[in-house]
């Protein structure tokens, strides 16, 4: 089990340029597999264009209490990139004027940002329809100061979206660390106890599933059925929806693919499962991702690959919905991860 980020280990893959080189070399350079741009051009979907902004996703920092094997953020306790209050104030100005219906806070563990609660307080006053916090669950059990997070989320009617890679201890702990499964179950019980995830409750609790290895997720609805059945029978836990997310070949998952000699087969699988219908609804067309230092990206994956938006407005301080509308989405071969099978986004399947 890894305990340090690629950055801390000074791995070659901590460098986003190196990752982009890998994603355009070998099987893609030789022509064995088509580049993503030419693949979407086959169905006249190149260039991908940004439509109306619906989801503003803000990454408040890469620090996390976990070091998951697959993490595309390369998050961990050793990451020090944390959004400052000044950048948060700039984000709040945008949240006030945006027409997007969803505000999505992510990380790292977003709760570890020292100004997280203040930011949620302020952002919730704007009255955005769907206010999401992506929580890894274990943070609620990591330290006493986080124990009241469920109540805090409830008081702001936050929509909690939590990671849960499997309904068994073995598979969960292998991907996310020893003890993660038991702590996650405890945290889910705490959330259920105050109404989160209960049938007919307005307190939304959704789970995120991503495969614990070099394979694609199965059908989201079938997996949701299995998760619901087992979590209820074995642990008396309720939740609303399951989002099945494909692992993209970025950062630690890319490192894992290469180290386990799965990279080429995985890319073949992604390309083989390419679905033009998923391209139609891919999340970058209605989402904007803001990094901890305020820069704008088409998605959280492009943020980690340091591929900024193709627009004159590059920073949250320069935010301009008109300038960003209809921009060309920046793509590379990692994008095949969002267009495979039923497609993948932070909201799960898209096709």
């Amino acid at each position, binding site marked *: 089990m890894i305990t340090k980020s690629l950055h801390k280990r000074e791995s070659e893959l901590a460098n986003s340029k190196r990752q982009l080189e890998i994603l355009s070399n070998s099987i893609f350079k030789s022509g064995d597999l088509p580049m993503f741009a030419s693949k979407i051009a086959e169905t006249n979907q190149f260039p991908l264009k940004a439509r109306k902004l619906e989801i503003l996703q803000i990454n408040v920092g890469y620090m996390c209490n976990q070091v998951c094997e697959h993490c595309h953020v390369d998050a961990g306790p050793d990451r020090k990139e944390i959004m400052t209050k000044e950048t948060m104030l700039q984000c709040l100005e945008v949240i006030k004027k945006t027409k997007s219906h969803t505000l999505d806070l992510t990380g790292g563990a977003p709760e570890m940002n020292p100004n997280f609660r203040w930011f949620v307080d302020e952002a919730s006053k704007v009255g955005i329809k769907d206010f999401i916090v992506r929580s890894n669950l274990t943070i609620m059990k990591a330290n006493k100061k986080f124990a009241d997070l469920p109540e805090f989320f409830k008081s702001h009617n936050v929509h909690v979206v939590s990671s849960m890679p499997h*309904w068994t201890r073995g*598979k969960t702990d292998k991907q996310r660390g020893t003890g993660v499964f038991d702590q996650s179950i405890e945290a889910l019980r705490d959330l259920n106890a105050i109404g989160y995830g209960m049938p007919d409750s307005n307190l939304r609790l959704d789970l995120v599933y991503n*495969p614990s290895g070099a394979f694609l997720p*199965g059908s989201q609805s*079938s*997996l949701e059925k299995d998760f619901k059945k087992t979590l209820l029978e074995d642990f008396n836990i309720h939740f609303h929806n399951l989002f099945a997310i494909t692992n993209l070949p970025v950062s630690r998952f890319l490192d894992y693919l290469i180290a386990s000699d799965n990279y080429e087969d995985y890319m073949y699988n992604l390309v083989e499962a390419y679905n033009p219908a998923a391209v139609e609804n891919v999340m970058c067309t209605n989402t904007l991702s803001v990094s901890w230092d305020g820069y704008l990206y088409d998605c959280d994956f492009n943020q980690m690959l340091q591929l900024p938006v193709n627009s004159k407005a590059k920073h949250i301080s320069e935010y301009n919905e008109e300038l960003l509308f209809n921009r060309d989405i920046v793509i590379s071969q990692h994008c095949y991860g969002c267009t495979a099978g039923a497609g993948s986004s932070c909201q799960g399947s898209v096709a």
Partner: protein
Amino acid sequence: MYQNYSTNDFRFISLLKFKQMQKTYYDPADLKKFGKISEWNEELGKKFFDYYGKVFEEGALTEREKSLIALAVAHTIQCPYCIDAYTGDGLQRGITKEEMMEALHVAAAIRGGASLVHGVQMMNKVNKLDM
């Protein structure tokens, strides 16, 4: 680098390459080409794949149960393509390795039992022939 090679050399190299290609009956990459069997008989190929797709749809049995049956059968008939395909399919469905191994033991038990149950035939024969 090839300018000093004679025609015979090239024939030899081609033969070597051919032999390398033939060094194994099974190539994992061939699984992806399964659909190509329709190219030589479209009508039967189509009928087969339509049937195949229908068989694995949810019915009285779930798709998950069918995937585990397929995995067990794959091992019984020792089909490397099918083992690859249904191990991957199982992982995608969230089937655990414990469930997979139990399914294999069902296959192994039936296969082993099928040998052993013929022991009754042997015993009958011995009892008939032996004084």
